[in-house]
């Protein structure tokens, strides 16, 4: 399994801004091809959603993608089965994003092992805040899976170092007050969050939630080490954009970030 933090640090040291596109696991027959296409397009890691029935941190697009995926019979087992070997083959680490009940139901230790066995490098559980993350984070550490924590604009200053100390792989800076979904502009809080986090940690700081196009990604990366892009990609996919065209879109974001 690829070490998420080492992989991202190496890319950052090489002067690169980090790009993490998102794919809803089990969305359609070609979802794994989409993961490969994003890897080819220059992603530094790929976030794969395991659909959950009640995604409270997600806006309409990811909700819809989750409903579609669940409607096709997608389960954590099927997503992890499909992902087996993909990260090794592409050389790009995979981070799953899901909600805590799927881990709780399986058992923290068993779920972490299942991720590790599928070659998954990390996990983001947005309904598991610092105070509740203990048992999961320990299980993830032991399985070698990076437990990525989120930091939000509402956090008082003294909370941020605690979040960063417990986060593995990178720290996820929530760009705004709100759930996932496209926005016409980058929130003013996005770079503020990145700055506040950069001031207290050496972990890679990636901004996510609401990053909706290449220009916003570039703007966020003026301060942040990288960005996570989700809703825009899944909206295009739900609208019928082909794997090739969506890969090309991610490649265009890559170029924009490289050109600064």
């Amino acid at each position, binding site marked *: 399994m690829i070490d998420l933090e080492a992989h991202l640090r190496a890319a950052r040291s090489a002067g690169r801004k980090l790009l993490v596109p998102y794919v809803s696991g089990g969305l359609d027959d070609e979802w794994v091809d989409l993961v490969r296409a994003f890897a080819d397009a220059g992603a530094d890691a790929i976030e794969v959603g395991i659909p959950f029935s*009640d995604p409270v941190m997600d806006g309409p697009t990811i909700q819809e993608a989750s*409903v579609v995926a669940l409607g096709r019979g997608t389960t954590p087992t099927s997503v992890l089965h499909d992902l087996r070997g993909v990260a090794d083959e592409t050389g790009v680490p995979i981070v799953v994003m899901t909600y805590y009940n799927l881990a709780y139901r*399986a058992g923290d230790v068993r779920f972490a092992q299942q991720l590790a066995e599928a070659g998954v490098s990390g996990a983001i559980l947005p*309904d598991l*805040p610092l105070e*509740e993350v203990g048992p999961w984070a320990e299980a993830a550490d032991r399985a070698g899976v990076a437990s990525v924590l989120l*930091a939000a*604009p509402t956090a008082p200053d003294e909370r941020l170092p605690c979040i960063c100390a417990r986060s593995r792989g990178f720290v996820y800076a929530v760009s705004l007050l709100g759930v996932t979904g496209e926005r016409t502009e980058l929130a003013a809080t996005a770079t503020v969050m990145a700055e506040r986090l950069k001031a207290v940690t050496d972990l890679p700081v990636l901004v996510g939630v609401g990053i909706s196009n290449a220009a916003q990604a570039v703007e966020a990366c003026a301060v942040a080490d990288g960005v996570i892009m989700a809703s825009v990609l899944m909206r295009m996919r739900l609208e019928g954009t082909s794997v090739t065209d969506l890969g090309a879109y991610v490649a265009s974001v890559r170029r924009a970030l490289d050109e600064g």
Partner: protein
Amino acid sequence: MALSEPTMPGASRVMGEPDPTGRFGRFGGRFVPETLVPACAELERAFRTAWADPGFRGELDHLGRTYAGRPSLLYEASRLSEELGLRLLLKREDLNHTGSHKINNVLGQALLAKRMGKSHVIAETGAGQHGVASATAAALLGLECTVYMGEVDMARQALNVFRMRLLGARVVPALSGSRTLKDAVNEAMRAWVADVERSHYLLGSVMGPHPYPWMVREFHRVIGDEAREQCREMTGGDPDVVVACVGGGSNAAGIFAGFAELPDVRLIGVEPAGGAAASRGIPGVVHGSVSFLLQDEFGQVQEAHSVSAGLDYPGVGPEHSHLADTGRAEYHPVTDAQVLDAFGLLARTEGIIPALECAHALSWIVQERESLRGQTVIMNLSGRGDKDVAQVQEILEAGGIGGVS
């Protein structure tokens, strides 16, 4: 905290404060997006301070008496008692303003929201009872109010949607998932994430992240405290059994709280067979806490199905899971057909049309009447049935449920 209840020496209180992480035994906690953690912590501090403040308690008590109609009656249902062979006392929360127990919680939380300087309250609703109560409290206290309601429920309960709008609230359809109560909670939480600085989430039951399960139970504790004293006055002693319906579990928690430390009083929660989280669920994490939950083998939350929209919820408040775990309370499922029978029975024998929710509680009493023979039973009549009359008419005219009519 200024509480007057007897405390068992040496033992930690039954239905006292949860531990510092918001847990009742292995249930509860604060499983929310990071964005909401400071708001939950602020709410916990504000509630703790307010609840210890005689000024706040006095203000809430005053509103209860002058606006909501407290204390509610404890009524001896003589004809039905005779028919069932037991002594049935009904705690008449249906006579409160807005027609259910919900007013106790919304007045408490709306006062607290004002105290915290919030100008807006967000609420979720299933049938519309909590939405109407929230809109009422917001109108009374001059707060803005937005209610999230599943699109399916909005169609089923169009009159309540109109009521909320009359009261000045904005009603927003929840368009995702099953488009019922569980999705309304999801939408309300998302709205709170986006507007947390200005808004208070006025949650409608003893569920959600800490401090909600504790706070909402404390706001409903008045039901149990009144009932205990009224029962002593009326019968010279304590009841043998206290029965309440359980959706999220707020009316049950409120009445149980008055009796939890009287070990000889049996506490019974009654759930719909299609949403029996406490009796048939598996521990899970959704909507902010660990609790018994209807879910599949992978942890996907299942949809509940009940004739009563107010109980149509796949989870249950964490304290009920703990009470079930420790055996202090028992939880039993009843079917829709049994509930409809009980609904008609109370109407015919006592001239009281109950909400379908609390007809669940009565349905269990009817079924257990042999084992309860001669006992004193207090049932929480959590709401009036006006909202359900049209639906029941429709069901009965269509031949009833499973041949029952």
